[in-house]
């Protein structure tokens, strides 16, 4: 008998516990990603309040529906009381949602003012969205773009935006073609990148990152065939590390190389000038990583990408404007490859042989 009682108790515990666990898990799935900016934390707080209120309304009303449906199912042919209404209760249930809406509005307005608060930005970046990638232009305030760090993404290598933690960042969002949207889920915010007519100010987005880390982002406004490939990421680091990162990025070096370069690496030189490469053939050893020392003498963007015979990209370099970069190319199997500038593939190309 004791066994049976224990089993019954266990069963009822399970009966309550399992749905509870499922509910909590589902509720957890319905919470946004960990917020990583001060503004994101404000939004997360507001979301939590709104979500809890929504959950209460959900359970209360669904319970009322289910209860009414089960309790008042038809049992006999008697006609129920023909109840037409009740003024008091109708006024009451007009007033309750009104109060909820007013309270939510007050809280959300407070949050809106918090996240819209402006401060002097430590870093200002012009974000250029285009079909279908991003270009980040670090503005240094000297109104000379030639010494600025600009990074433009490709499908194979989405751009990385290095940013300091703890300092206000301002993005100026510009588009030359269609509407895009700058969205970082971990910041809980997006803002549309709109091609405004001349004379109108572009949208801006300001935030302060709290924690170091890498946060994925992508375009959130449908912008055409390449929409799903408009990815980018944000690499947040301590201010000192950020300064080092920016200096090395400006110098055209691959940011923060994790491995030391092999001592006797092959280095091949390639120069772009007047929208042409200086060489039409390159030769590298097969099965060994090598470096392309790429010099761009033009004031427009170039890069180097390598394709195998089937047309698949095996390497895509970072785009640079008037500068130098050392591309670390992974080992290639023996064979003939095409190299080209993805921005000017018709005029800037050549053959790369690995043997």
């Amino acid at each position, binding site marked *: 008998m004791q066994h049976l009682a224990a089993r019954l108790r266990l069963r009822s515990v399970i009966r309550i516990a399992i749905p509870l666990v499922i509910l909590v898990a589902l509720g957890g799935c319905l919470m946004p990603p960990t917020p990583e900016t001060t503004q994101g934390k404000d939004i997360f707080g507001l979301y939590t309040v709104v979500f809890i209120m929504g959950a209460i309304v959900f359970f209360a009303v669904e319970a009322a529906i289910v209860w009414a449906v089960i309790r008042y199912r038809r049992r006999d042919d008697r006609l129920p009381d023909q109840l037409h209404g009740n003024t008091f209760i109708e006024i009451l249930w007009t007033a309750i949602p009104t109060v909820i*809406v007013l309270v939510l509005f007050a809280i959300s307005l407070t949050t809106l003012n918090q996240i819209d608060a402006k401060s002097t930005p430590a870093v200002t970046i012009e974000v250029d969205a285009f079909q279908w990638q991003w270009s980040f232009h670090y503005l240094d305030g000297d109104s000379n773009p030639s010494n600025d760090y600009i990074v433009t993404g490709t499908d194979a290598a989405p751009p990385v935006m290095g940013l300091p933690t703890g300092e206000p960042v301002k993005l100026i969002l510009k588009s030359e073609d269609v509407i895009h949207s700058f969205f970082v889920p971990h910041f809980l915010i997006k803002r*549309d990148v709109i091609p405004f007519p001349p004379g109108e100010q572009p949208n801006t987005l300001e935030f302060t990152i709290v924690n170091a880390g890498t946060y994925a982002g992508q375009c959130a406004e449908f912008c055409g065939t390449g929409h799903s490939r408009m990815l980018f990421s944000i690499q947040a680091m301590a201010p000192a590390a950020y300064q080092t990162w920016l200096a090395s990025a400006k110098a055209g070096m691959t940011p923060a190389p994790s491995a030391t370069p092999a001592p006797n690496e092959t280095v091949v030189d390639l120069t772009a000038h007047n929208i042409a490469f200086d060489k039409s053939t390159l030769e590298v050893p097969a099965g060994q990583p090598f470096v392309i020392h790429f010099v761009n003498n033009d004031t427009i963007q170039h890069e180097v990408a390598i394709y195998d015979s089937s047309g698949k990209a095996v390497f895509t370099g970072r785009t640079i404007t008037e500068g130098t970069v050392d591309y670390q190319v992974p080992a290639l199997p023996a064979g003939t490859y095409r190299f080209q500038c993805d921005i000017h593939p018709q005029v800037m190309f050549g053959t790369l042989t690995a043997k």
Partner: protein
Amino acid sequence: MATTTLTPQVGSYRRSWILEWLTTVDHKKIGIMYIVNSFLFFFLAGILALAVRSELAVPGLQFLDDATYNQAFTMHGTIMIFLFVVPVLAGFANYIVPLQIGAPDMAFPRINALSFWLLPLGGGLILSGYLFGGAAAEGWTGYTPLSSAYSPGPGTDLWLIGLLLVGTASILGSINFIATIFKMRAPGMTFFRMPIFVWTVLVTATLILLATPVLAAGLIALFIDRNYGGSFFEPATGGNPILWQHIFWFFGHPEVYIVILPAMGVVSEVLPTFSRKPLFGYRAFVFATIAIGLLSFSVWAHHMFTTGVVFLPFFSFMTALIAVPTGVKMFNWIATMYRGSISFTTAMLFAVGFLAMFLIGGISGVMMAEAPVDFHLQDTYFAVAHLHYVFFGGAVMGVFAATYYWFPKMFGRRLNEKLGKVHFWLMLIGFNVTFFPMHILGIQGMPRRIADYSPTAGWTVWNFISTIGAFTIAISILPFLLNVVATFINGERVGDDPWEGNTLEWATSSPPPPYNFDRLPPVRSERPVFDLRHRHDRERLLGEAAMAAVEEHS
């Protein structure tokens, strides 16, 4: 004195039934054609949805390329909204409204036929883009400048012209409904004795009349931009792409209520009938419907919170405010069932399904009405989940409730209840398995309208579940189709008033004669047929009361 008998001459001259249907101006036949046409478009757009869901089941592009994918979701959205949910409910309104107000037909029968025939024409044009190098692929919202300078093909032009025709059909239909409801009500049917479904159709028609011309203007402006060097939306030449969003959503948000109000009307007919009680708070319900209609014109920019160019507090507040009249309706519906005597017919199940699912769409709507929350959720799968809980969990549940409820009126036969229940439960489960995970995906940050996503994004599991749900919905359609076919072959004949309805359509034969009514019962309340059915009860009650009074005095 010689008596002349007038026999109705309808049907006295013969023509083939095809010609009869093609040239009919009878609101009942036109209503049925609306419904059949809409369901055909529903199945087509459903197949497109399956294509979209199949592509998203796992990362990578397996079935479609980017361009085909974009066309698929654009056509899915456009057809579902403009050629299914709006016209199917217009079809039920066409059939039911004249019957419910005791009228012989719509006010303008020929315009009625015209507004129907514009639909397959418009829909055909929209789809014909597939024959000319690809259908429109800018989403059903067609945002500029993507839909102007950056989409050169003829697909977008065909989309514009097709939508213009469909919009014209809506406008003509709305004028017809307003004239019919104002001028053709039976004697005794005052405004506050009209069935709630008629009220919702009246408010809907007013919304169409005020909102759709704005869309039409926008479509024409965009057509000029695309083909005649116009510059309404073209930033390079001084136009503003945001203007399109204002125009589109000034139409587009009332459009949501154009879809949901008649479905609410259906639910407000079905719940009282199967609870055997009057609708709780009839007047409050009417005022709530009007309030929703008015508010719907002050909330359009909540679709534009992330554009950075709209005044957030106003639109945020007005949007959340719509929750108040909507909440009133929800409570009235539940109070209608309270202390009722509820029978679970398939129509009732779909009506209760509407309550349970629309509630979720309403709550997620209030969440997104708070601008900062919307900064995160806008244009993610959360919005997709929200709009499907409103359009599918709301409107489509209402459409099926209407189908099961009024089928016996239209054809004199009742749809099979067992198959109906299989249909309901499969669809309810499939619906939630498809769309609930989309909330989670959106909160995690998955943008809408992407053809592909990274396997490392962590979205694979929920997408896969969602795709399983989509196929469950598709399977749930099979018992429905089987049911319709089987009922036509061998369905149960159930007489004129199988459900013990309350409103005038149940006072005539099933199907009704071409002129609708041989005689009309007196209209003394919003439930004339209920009064007729229970007139003896009342006499008995009055008699008993009188006897009691007499006994007291004696």
